[in-house]
C-alpha cells in the first residue's frame, strides 16, 4: 500500500544487491533507527529499559547468533547458552587480568574464545548429521555448566561461585545508566545485524544454506562441509559469546553459572523457532516475544482481576511457549518473520491479493 516502486530500477549489480533495495524500506529503516537512538532514550522509563529493552537487545544478538548455525546452516544446537557463558567468563577474566584493555577489544576477544570453543563442539557435526548433534551440544551445555561451577580459576576463586563486574567503561565513558546501556547495546546490535546480513548474503551464507537445504548437493558443487559447518559454528558462537559478555557485564552485573543454563539455551531456540529460522529479522521478533510475554503474563491477570501466583505464571509461560512452538511449526514453520514477509508482500501488491 505504501510502496511506490516505479522508477526504482537498478543499473548496477551493487545497487541490485544492496541491503534494502526498496527505497521505502530504506526510509523506514532510517526512521526506525533514528527513533530508537533519539526518541526512545528520551521517553522511556528506567523500568522499561532494564526489564525490556536491554534484555531484548542482548537476546536478539544471541538469537541472531544461534540462527546463523541452526536457521541458516541447519545444524541443531541446544547448548548455545554454554557459548554465552564462555563469552561472559572470557570477558570477566580478560577484564580481571588485563584491566587496561578496551572493552570493545574485550568483547571481540571474548567472542573469539567462544568461537574457538564453539568450533570444538561443532567438530562432531562433521561426522554426524542433524539430530545427533543435539546431543553433542547438550553435552557442551552440561560440560560448561560444570566447568564454570567447579574450576575456581574461572571465577577468580570467588567463594559463592558468583562473579561481580564493574560498570563498563569505554573511552572514558562509563556506561552506567539504563539509557547509556541501551544506546551502547543498540549500537552493538546494529553493527552485528549488518555483519550477519552481510554474511548470509555472501558466499559463506550461501554455503551454509546449501548445507542446510541439501548437504549432498552442496558437497557435489564444491562446498567443503568442514569449512561450511565449522565456520557456521564459529561465527555463531562468536555472536553468542559477545552476547554472553554483554549479558554478564551490561545486563546482570553479577552472575553465577546457572545464569547460562539449559533453560537459556532452550529459550534461545524458542526465539528462533517463533521468530523464524533462517531470518535475521526473525531473531528480533523472537527476542521481543520472549521478553514481552512474561511481562504481559504478569500484568494481564492483575489487570483482569484474576489472582495468580508467580509460580503459576511461570508455569503458564512454559505452557504457552510449548504450545506456540508446536503451533508455529504446524502453521507457519518460518515463524513471525514469514508472517512479516507475507504482510510486506501483500502491501507491495496491494490492492491485489497476489
Amino acid at each position: 500500500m505504501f510502496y511506490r516502486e516505479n522508477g526504482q530500477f537498478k543499473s548496477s549489480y551493487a545497487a541490485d544487491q544492496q541491503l534494502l533495495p526498496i527505497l521505502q524500506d530504506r526510509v523506514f529503516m532510517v526512521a526506525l533507527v533514528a527513533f530508537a537512538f533519539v526518541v526512545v532514550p528520551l521517553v522511556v522509563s528506567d523500568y522499561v529499559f532494564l526489564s525490556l529493552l536491554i534484555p531484548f537487545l542482548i537476546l536478539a544478538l544471541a538469537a541472531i547468533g544461534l540462527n546463523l548455525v541452526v536457521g541458516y546452516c541447519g545444524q541443531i544446537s541446544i547448548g548455545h547458552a554454554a557459548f554465552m557463558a564462555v563469552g561472559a567468563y572470557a570477558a570477566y577474566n580478560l577484564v580481571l587480568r588485563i584491566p587496561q584493555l578496551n572493552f570493545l577489544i574485550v568483547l571481540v576477544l571474548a567472542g573469539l574464545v567462544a568461537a574457538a570453543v564453539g568450533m570444538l563442539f561443532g567438530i562432531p557435526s562433521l561426522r554426524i548429521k542433524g539430530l545427533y548433534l543435539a546431543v553433542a551440544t547438550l553435552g557442551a551445555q552440561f560440560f560448561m555448566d560444570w566447568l564454570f561451577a567447579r574450576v575456581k580459576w574461572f571465577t577468580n576463586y570467588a567463594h559463592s561461585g558468583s562473579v561481580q563486574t564493574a560498570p563498563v567503561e569505554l573511552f572514558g565513558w562509563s556506561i552506567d545508566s539504563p539509557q547509556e546501556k541501551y544506546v551502547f547495546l543498540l549500537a552493538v546490535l546494529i553493527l552485528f545485524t549488518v555483519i550477519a546480513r552481510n554474511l548470509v548474503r555472501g558466499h559463506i551464507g550461501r554455503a551454509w544454506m546449501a548445507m542446510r537445504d541439501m548437504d549432498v548437493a552442496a558437497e557435489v558443487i564444491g562446498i567443503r562441509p568442514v569449512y561450511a559447518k565449522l565456520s557456521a559454528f564459529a561465527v555463531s558462537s562468536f555472536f553468542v559469546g559477545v552476547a554472553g559478555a554483554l549479558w554478564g557485564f551490561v545486563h546482570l552485573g553479577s552472575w553465577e553459572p546457572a545464569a547460562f543454563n539449559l533453560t537459556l539455551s532452550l529459550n534461545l531456540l524458542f526465539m528462533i523457532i517463533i521468530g523464524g529460522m533462517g531470518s535475521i529479522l526473525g531473531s528480533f521478533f523472537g527476542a521481543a516475544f520472549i521478553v514481552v510475554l512474561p511481562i504481559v503474563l504478569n500484568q494481564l491477570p492483575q489487570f483482569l482481576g484474576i489472582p495468580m501466583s508467580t509460580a503459576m505464571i511461570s508455569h503458564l509461560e512454559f505452557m504457552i511457549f510449548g504450545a506456540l512452538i508446536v503451533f508455529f511449526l504446524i502453521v507457519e514453520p518460518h515463524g513471525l518473520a514469514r508472517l512479516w514477509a507475507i504482510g510486506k508482500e501483500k502491501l507491495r501488491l496491494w490492492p491485489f491479493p497476489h
Partner: protein
Amino acid sequence: MARNWPVVLLCAALLVGLALPLATGASPPGFYVEVLLGGLMTGVLYSLVAMGFALIFKASGVFNFAQGAMVLFAALAVARLAERMPLWAAILLGIVVMIALAFVIERVVLRPLVNQEGIALFMATLGVTFFLDGFGQTVWGSDIYKIDLGIAKEPVMVLQGLFQGGILINKEDVAAALVAVALVAVLALFFQKTATGRALRAVADDHQAAQSIGIPLNRMWVIVWSVAGIVALVAGVIWGSRLGVQFSVSLVALKALPVVILGGLTSVTGAIVGGLIIGVGEKMAEVFLGPVLVKTFDLAGGGIENWFAYVLALLFLLVRPQGLFGEKHIDRV
C-alpha cells in the same frame, strides 16, 4: 573390520579405566562392587528411559526430546495421585494418563507434522517439553514429592563372605532393578510375539511399505508413544522413590539421549546395553575419577557425572557415528 580399530581402542580404554581402581588398589573390592552395582542400577533406569526413546525414534522417526519431561510428568502424576489413593491405583491411573497423553500428542503434534523433516519434529518435541514441564507443574504442583513404594529402604549387607566388610545393597534398588528387568522382558515379548509388536517392527523398518500393507500408522504411533509413556512412568516412579519427585528428574532423564547415541538410535538392545555402560561408567568416573580431578585441578567439588555420559557418547560418535548397535546409513542421491 580394519576400520573398526578406533572402536576397539575406545572400548579397551574404557575397560582399562574400569579395571584401574581395582588394579591399582585404590579401592577395596567390596566398595568397588558396591559402586559397580550402584552404577548398574542407575544404568537400568537409563536403559528404561532410553528404550522409550529408541522405540519412538524407530517407529516414528521422531527424536523425542520430551522423553525427560514425560518421566517427570508421569512421576508427578503418580506421586500426587498416590496421596489420595493406594499406590497401585495411582500407578494404574498414571498409566491411563500417559496413554491419554500419547493420544493427544499424536493428534495435536504428530499428525499435522507428518512427512516433515526430522529437525522440525525434534523442535516440536521441544515444544512438548516446554508444555509438559509447565502443564505438569500446574496440574500436579511444583514442590518436591515423595513416592513410597512400600519397600524398606534400609540397606542389607550381602556377600560378607566374599568381600571384606560385605556389600551394602538397598532392597528397594534390588526391587526396582527387578521391576525394570521384568519390564524389559515384557516389552521384548510384546515386540516379538504379539501382532501389534510385529506391526510396529514393520513400521520401523519401512513406513511406506507398512502403510501399503494396511498397517494404520497413526494407531501405531499412539501405541508406541503410550508404551514410551508407560516406560517413562516406571522409570519416574523408581527414580521418584529414590530421589524424590522434582524438576531435576527431567534433566537426569535427558541422559537417555547420550545412551541412545551410544547404543544406536534405532536399537532397543543398544538402549539397554548403552544404559548399563553409561550408568556404570559415570558412577565409576564420579567415585574414582572425580576425587582425582578435584585434587589435581583444585576443583570446587566433583559432579562430573553431569557431563560424563555426553562426553562418552561424543567419543563414540566420532569413532562410530551409527552407535554400537545402529545401522549404517547410506546416502542416496
